[in-house]
């Protein structure tokens, strides 16, 4: 029963639920809240799927004994509360599904992390050779004819500017752009995006994970635009100038939609989400995160309330 509920929830939130959230406009008004909402949605779907598999597998696990000790309840009662029509085959399916879920995500996230670390290390080694540190800017400068600014996450993170970027922007525009990059490092957006990218790569058939990754990419940029604390006009101008300054003959130009949304937002900022609504989002986030766990644990919790054991001692005790 719990497994069916959890699976139903995962499908509902993971598919139409995610599409619904995707159509709303409020995340752009307060990107910080939007980021939490999308992360909670993804985590909720994942937890529900894991919970469904785990509750299916529970009756067949020897683990139940330890759980009973913790709850001071009859272990047979717990087993009965988790029993479902499928019997042992369903329990095995649950165990396999749970293992596959965890292994798949672990593998994708792990390889992604290693790949990122290797590339960043390569970047840093080469930056050491060709880039000039400019402590006054809080960044290093690479002599290059294409205007670009980027940050390399790490301990500590590095912010990189090309010489062309410095030539293209005024001092104040440059400072705005660098403040945006510092916000990325401070808020650890790269970690957030690693999670979203891993979920999408591991389970690409789940709309929630694909939509979450796209939305989070845009929302983290908007959040950094806000968190930089720079004048909006300066930020927008820096954005447009750097967009103009990058090589125009590249076929695969992916940054258009996000950049347009950012500049529109900087040019005509929408009113931020008011406190009652922020509270609603916060409450929904917490609910989405704990609900799968509660539903999964419910049978065990109700079993704990039973204060009798079956009359005969079960075999093996």
């Amino acid at each position, binding site marked *: 029963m719990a497994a069916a509920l959890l699976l139903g929830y995962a499908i509902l939130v993971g598919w139409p639920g995610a599409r619904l959230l995707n159509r709303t406009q409020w995340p752009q008004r307060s990107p910080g809240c939007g980021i939490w909402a999308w992360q909670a949605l993804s985590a909720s779907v994942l937890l529900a799927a894991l919970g469904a598999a785990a509750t299916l597998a529970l009756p067949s696990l020897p683990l139940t004994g330890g759980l009973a000790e913790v709850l001071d309840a009859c272990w047979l009662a717990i087993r009965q509360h988790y029993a479902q029509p499928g019997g042992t085959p369903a329990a095995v399916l649950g165990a396999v599904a749970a293992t596959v879920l965890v292994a798949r995500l672990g593998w994708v996230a792990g390889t992604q992390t290693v790949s990122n670390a290797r590339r960043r290390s390569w970047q840093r080694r*080469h930056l050491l050779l060709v880039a000039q540190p400019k402590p006054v800017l809080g960044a290093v400068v690479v002599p*290059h004819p294409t205007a670009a600014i980027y940050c*390399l996450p790490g301990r500590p993170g590095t912010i990189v500017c090309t010489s062309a970027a410095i030539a293209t922007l005024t001092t104040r525009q440059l400072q705005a752009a660098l403040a945006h990059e510092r916000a990325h490092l401070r808020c650890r957006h790269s970690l957030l995006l690693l999670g979203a990218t891993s979920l999408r790569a591991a389970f690409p058939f789940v709309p929630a994970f694909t939509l979450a990754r796209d939305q989070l990419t845009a929302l983290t940029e908007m959040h950094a635009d806000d968190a930089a604390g720079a004048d909006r006009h300066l930020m927008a101008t820096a954005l*447009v100038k750097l967009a103009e300054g990058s090589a125009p003959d*590249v076929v695969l130009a992916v940054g*258009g939609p996000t950049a347009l949304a950012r500049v529109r937002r900087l040019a005509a900022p929408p009113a931020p989400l008011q406190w009652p609504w922020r509270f609603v989002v916060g409450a929904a986030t917490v609910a989405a995160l704990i609900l799968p766990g509660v539903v999964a644990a419910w049978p065990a919790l109700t079993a704990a309330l039973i204060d009798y054991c079956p009359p005969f001692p079960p075999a093996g005790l």
Partner: protein
Amino acid sequence: MRQLGQLEAVVMAQLWAVEEAMSARDVVNHLRQSRDIAYTTVLTVLENLRHKDLVTRVKDGRAYRYRPRLTREEHSAALMQEVLGTSEDRQGTLLRFVEQISPEDVARLRDILNAGVDGKRAP
């Protein structure tokens, strides 16, 4: 490791600064003007750089003469090629201030900016 990286940067900078190939002794003499450094250290660094395919060497009598494999510009270009590319893998590595934009979208961006931000006109 960080120390070694710094030394490699200093030695590469020295090689780039001088037009012709330099022997380890030449490099040491130049560097001794601003720091205390041992000949063997410089030789080790040059050999490290050679194994990393960053410098090449030619035999000149009994000594070797080293020169950078790529010019400073070529090196920067190689670095930035990774950054300016659009591969999926690269997107996880770093965060660009603004990603690659098509010329049509660039024109649209300019229009929005010119229309005014917060009532201010574009510079």
